[in-house]
């Protein structure tokens, strides 16, 4: 069986790992790097809870092989706050708008929301709803999620 030397750049830090080629980026983060802020809700691309940024774009970590992510800049929920620990404005807005209940989909929602604003897809509530539909929330915090994102988009 092949063992791959994979160098991952996560939240600005470089990690050298020896991985089974089957390891997904999601499992590399969670099981190998202990970065469990990125959540697993399906492993099939159907829920969005594993959303991370790869080279600045939101993607689903469960459908990316860790090996494919080598050499790319990966950003997770743990890398969102400022260096001094100040929460990212999106994190603060989620708290302020009660945009979460159980919190399990939340890291994925926030990573997706940050991209949603950066992409320019947060101009209206309906646009936010559509561009956030790849992140399921079973607790159904949707109205507050929309409010939090609209708030951040207005400020941006």
């Amino acid at each position, binding site marked *: *069986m*092949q063992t*791959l030397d994979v160098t991952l750049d996560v939240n600005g830090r470089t990690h050298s790992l020896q991985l*089974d*080629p*089957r390891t*997904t980026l999601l499992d590399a983060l969670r099981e190998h790097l202990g970065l469990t802020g990125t959540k697993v809700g399906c*492993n*099939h*691309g159907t829920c*969005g809870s594993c*959303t991370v940024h*790869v080279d600045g*774009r*939101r*993607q*689903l970590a*469960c*459908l*990316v*092989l860790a*090996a*494919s992510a080598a050499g790319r800049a990966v950003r997770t929920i743990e890398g969102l706050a400022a260096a001094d620990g100040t929460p990212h404005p999106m994190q603060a807005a989620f708290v302020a708008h009660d945009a979460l209940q159980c919190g399990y989909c939340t890291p994925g929602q926030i990573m*997706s929301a940050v*991209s*949603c604003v950066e*992409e320019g*897809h947060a101009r209206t509530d309906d646009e936010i*709803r*559509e*561009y956030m*539909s*790849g*992140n*399921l929330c079973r607790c159904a915090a949707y109205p507050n999620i929309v409010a939090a994102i609209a708030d951040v988009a207005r400020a941006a």
Partner: protein
Amino acid sequence: MQPFTYVRPDTLEQALHEAAEPGASVLAGGTTMVDLMRGDLAAPRRVVDIGHLPGLSEIDLSGPVLRFGALARMADAAEDAALKRDYPALAESLQLAASQQLRNAATLGGNLLQRTRCPYFRNGVSACNKRVPGSGCSALDGEDREMALFGISDACVANYPGDWGTALAAFDTAVEIRSAAASRTVPLANFHVAYGDDPARETVLEQGEIVTAITVRATPAGRGSTYAKVRDRQSYAYALVSAAVALEMDGDTVASARVSLGGVASKPWRSAEAEAVLTGATLTEAAGLRAGEAAFAGARPGRHNAFKVELGRRVVARAALTASRRA
């Protein structure tokens, strides 16, 4: 996932060489491939990662033939301003597919090659001629609400789920293919094989071949086009029924029409029947519905999906009306 060797070639030539190895599969965005491997629905011994190969992600809309690099990302194409303006059906088909996260990873080539969402294929246990040739088709006497009405047989009634391929079928589209030894161009109409004919085979792609580009003959009908998609929920869902319509109008009269159907066939399905009804017609809702009726005249519904005939008739009408307003 069964064990495999992972390789990441630096050039297309190397990739073609690697892909020719027995048991090799290429990996582009991975959004279909990793999912299939997880369920052992694909078990390549060698995974050739081409996702990052240079020179295959350009979108060029300037010439008489539009060129979409096979590795262009769905999100980039969906948001291409010129594509949205000149070929809204193509942009919309991508925009209405999957989610932004998936569209960021998924490629235009990979999208054409996605596999059916039939639960009997996916669940890994039920009889399925696609997964285990000769084992039978569970959908025939099972849950078939999502199944196809065209291009099917008693061996397989699965549905081709792609939106982009469906929209492309309304245009003169071709697929450029390379292998280590040769290159060829296949019209889209001949690229996919209807599942009903040979469930295990879905395209004419041979081992070692890589799709390098998708080309579309430029047409003024592009501006008069739309992609209508009806799904159970508002977003992040596959089509129950979809239709692409591209029109050229002469006043209120349809000068030329192209119609393709999704969610109802085992491959991107062009409807010459609907095109014939529309061409020369004055476009009203009634004319649109007549075209829809013609489109579904040859449908072969199963036990729970007969409603797609009525729904499809209306989707074609809606798309035709929208397209005519743009043309």
